[in-house]
């Protein structure tokens, strides 16, 4: 193992985060606050409790997931796309490191950033509503697994993208709709039966449902299924990254 390489990649990726700390923290705090004002207070006050949880509290896990997913993808895809774009990737490609070490460095840093953001959002949420977390360990597990899997997913997008448009394409057209339609702001049982079935094909539903269960012990699908789905997604992303490096996809050709 080339530990030094992992160390410097991680360190310098994180450095960018600390250098723009105000932006990094201010933007999720402001957007979370806005969601609370709009959904929690303005609209939420007219919505009755869902599964015995007040609406303002109910949306917290979905809100965290919304930021986590978009930030993980944005951080990781940009982290690897930018050196590709400027050409500095030549150095990583010519260094004595394996794909696994590159992934640990870049994805580890992106996941760490998302984790920090997720924690900040939770703290912000706690200022607006009274949060009680039923299963803190599971909550952490879901949080960390989500950060890692979606950072990996972002890494794939960053490797795949050949221009800035493509870099934005999947987060905009696929991920954001999936998050909104995955029950971030509502329980799936509130949908008409036909749409409930459609929603079951949305992978984000399982993430949000499992995460919400760790807070309130209420879930749209069983926790085991949620956990299995997120681990499956993680492994699938790993397999794709491994294949990309093995074949030199858009890197060594």
């Amino acid at each position, binding site marked *: 193992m*080339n530990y*030094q*390489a992992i*160390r*410097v*990649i991680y*360190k*310098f990726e994180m*450095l*960018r985060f600390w*250098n723009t700390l105000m932006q990094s923290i201010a933007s999720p705090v402001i957007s979370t606050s806005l969601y609370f004002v709009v959904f929690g207070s303005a609209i939420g006050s007219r919505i009755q409790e869902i599964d015995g949880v007040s609406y303002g509290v109910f949306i917290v896990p979905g809100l965290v997931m919304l930021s986590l997913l978009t930030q993980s993808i944005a951080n990781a895809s940009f982290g690897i796309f930018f*050196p590709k774009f*400027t*050409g*500095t990737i*030549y*150095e*990583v*490609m*010519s*260094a*004595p*490191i*394996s794909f696994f070490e590159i992934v640990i460095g870049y994805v580890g840093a992106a996941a760490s950033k998302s984790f920090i953001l997720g924690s900040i959002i939770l703290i912000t949420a706690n200022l607006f509503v009274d949060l009680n977390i039923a299963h803190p360990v599971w909550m952490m597990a879901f949080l960390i697994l989500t950060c890692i899997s979606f950072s990996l997913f972002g890494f794939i997008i960053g490797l795949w993208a050949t221009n800035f448009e493509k870099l934005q394409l999947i987060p905009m057209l696929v991920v954001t709709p999936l998050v909104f339609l995955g029950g971030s702001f509502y329980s799936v049982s509130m949908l008409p039966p036909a749409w409930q079935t459609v929603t079951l094909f949305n992978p984000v539903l399982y993430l949000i449902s499992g995460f919400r269960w760790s807070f309130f012990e209420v879930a749209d699908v069983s926790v085991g299924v949620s956990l299995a789905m997120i681990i499956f997604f993680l492994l699938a992303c790993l397999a794709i990254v491994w294949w990309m490096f093995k074949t*030199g996809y858009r890197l*060594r*050709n």
Partner: protein
Amino acid sequence: MQPIIKISDLSKTYESGHQALSNVNLDINDGEILALLGPNGAGKTTLISIICGIVASSTGSVTVAGHDTVKDYRFTRSLIGLVPQELTLGAFDSVWNTVNFSRGLFGKEPNPAYLEQLLKDLSLFDKKDSELRELSGGMKRRVLIAKALSHEPRILFLDEPTAGVDVELRKDMWQLVRGLHKSGVTIILTTHYIEEAEEIADRVGVISAGKLLLVDNKDNLMRELGKKQLALELKQPVDQLPESLAPYNLEISADGAQLIYTYNTTGERTGITALLQAVNAAGLSLKDLNTSQSSLEEIFVKLLKAKA
């Protein structure tokens, strides 16, 4: 002595169908300075990129210090430093951070004292806290050299190091190369200037259209490349040469109006004075005369034809 780099039957065809390298065989000796000479698009950068692991080869193999660059990539890559042709640097990192990053990337423990000396040698130390985007082109090139040397490589690749570089930096760079050469580092540089190869290299390889046309000692090659031609334009065309001119191996143009004499500028005598006297004695009168030196392109074409 075992070559430090051994390239065997190496070919590369890109996905676009462009064949960048065709069956290249080359041994690079430990501690030498090898200049790869060739026009743009000859395949020089592709060759370097394959050795460094940036581009995958289509067929053939490369070993560095006896180890395969694909199977033992950790070992081979740790020996190599690469200064790329383009000024590819991040924008917001500081000089100090970027050289530390490079050193770590190649698996070396941090060593601030070594990096400090390196930056001083490259006249970069007073810029160590500057952001990369603030640097001039010449300074950026120095940073790229510092990055390549940050992990104390045994082999250094310089891909067109003097493209867009001012005289001072060029002088500094050659001094640095000589210093590294003295300390035993093998240096491979690409260029399309003969003068550069002449100034610094021990051996010169000529590469064109993906083929390595020849590799030879610089002195041998310079003799070959140093040839010039003198064209004598006659007032009256001739059918055949007077016998007295036979020793000069002249060529007659198709219309008989021109005699072409090939000579070597690096030789002790060019034989021009004697030739002109002989031409005069043979009763030929001249309308005009001019000399020309084969351009590098022409030499490439000639070499390519000769090898085909």
